């Protein structure tokens, strides 16, 4: 596959990838460059070299998954590039090609699809109290634990409309609206993309000898919690 040609089809790539001065203005303020073995400038330079093998290596690596999408790089680039948007195009391609399951950080896409991805279609929200479980989110603290333990009373006290009909915060999204969302995913390739993530991940899970059963999803737990701690030099 000609990866550059594929990348060039992505409007984000067209908007964000011009020639690079290698000045490092992006890496200087990049939150990911500070805590990972990562340098957005190098991503842009690698892609700019248009070496297919090098790009493939990138698509199979952890490197493209470190960026936190804050887009601070876009503000500063003297050539109007945005490494964060080049990353988006690379991540899309890595998933389309099934390369994402080859890196520890790439495999986490399965976890994101299973949590955020499914929440979107089921509840109509990316985030929902039902999903922010204190046992999975100990860092949310004891007050959040209290909120969840007294969920209905607390949300009611705060004027929300938790999982009920009508307008208001955290209302139940009506089925007809969820159906429209689902239809949009169908028409625009959202479902197809979810399926790619799902299928490729299942293949990898099998390879790694882990189950992906609804009730005992070892692979899901693994991708969400495993950290080799090899992301800094």
């Amino acid at each position, binding site marked *: 596959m000609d990866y550059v040609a594929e990348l060039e089809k992505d409007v984000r790539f067209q908007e964000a990838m011009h020639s690079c001065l290698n000045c490092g203005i992006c890496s200087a303020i990049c939150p990911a*460059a*500070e*805590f*990972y*073995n990562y340098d957005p400038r190098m991503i842009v330079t690698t892609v700019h070299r248009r070496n297919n093998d090098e790009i493939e290596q990138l698509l199979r690596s952890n490197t493209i998954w470190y960026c936190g999408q804050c887009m601070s790089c876009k503000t500063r680039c003297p050539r109007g590039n945005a490494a964060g948007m080049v990353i988006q195009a690379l991540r899309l391609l890595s998933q389309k090609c099934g390369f994402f399951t080859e890196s520890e950080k790439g495999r986490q896409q399965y976890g994101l699809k299973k949590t955020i991805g499914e929440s979107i279609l089921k509840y109509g929200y990316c985030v929902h109290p039902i999903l922010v479980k204190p046992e999975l989110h*100990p*860092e949310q603290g004891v007050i959040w634990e209290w909120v969840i333990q007294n969920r209905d009373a607390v949300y009611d006290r705060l004027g929300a409309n938790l999982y009920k009909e009508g307008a208001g915060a955290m209302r139940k999204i009506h089925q007809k609206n969820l159906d429209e969302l689902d239809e949009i995913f169908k028409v625009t390739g959202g479902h197809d993309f979810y399926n790619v993530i799902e299928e490729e991940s299942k293949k990898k899970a099998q390879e790694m000898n882990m189950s992906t059963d609804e009730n005992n999803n070892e692979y899901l737990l693994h991708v969400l*919690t495993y*950290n080799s701690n090899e992301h*800094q*030099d």
Partner: protein
Amino acid sequence: MRNFGFSTTKSRTIDYEKIDNRLIRYVLENEPTFNACLSCGSCTAICSAGNLTSFNIRRLSLQIRLGELEHAHEELDKCMLCGKCLLECPRGINTRNVIMLMKKGLYLIESESKEKNDR
């Protein structure tokens, strides 16, 4: 302290407040031509050891300037002291002597800290 399943990470940022300049000071005092390094990489391009191993004299020089000495010892051992870099350097730096001084300086620093520990 509680374990959350993750922890804070050390920053990779170079902090000029905290640079260990013992080795670079020693090298520059004894081989002032090294001040003129351009980081052009000519030395690395011609390097015999660099063509066979991961040895990168330009990168090593930079690491020593930034006071990162952890891997310096093993890196320096990769150099074959062939001196080709000396011929190549556009600024006429005595790179061979630089390497020798790095080795010697590192030895001095190491034995100094050993002495401190022994005491």
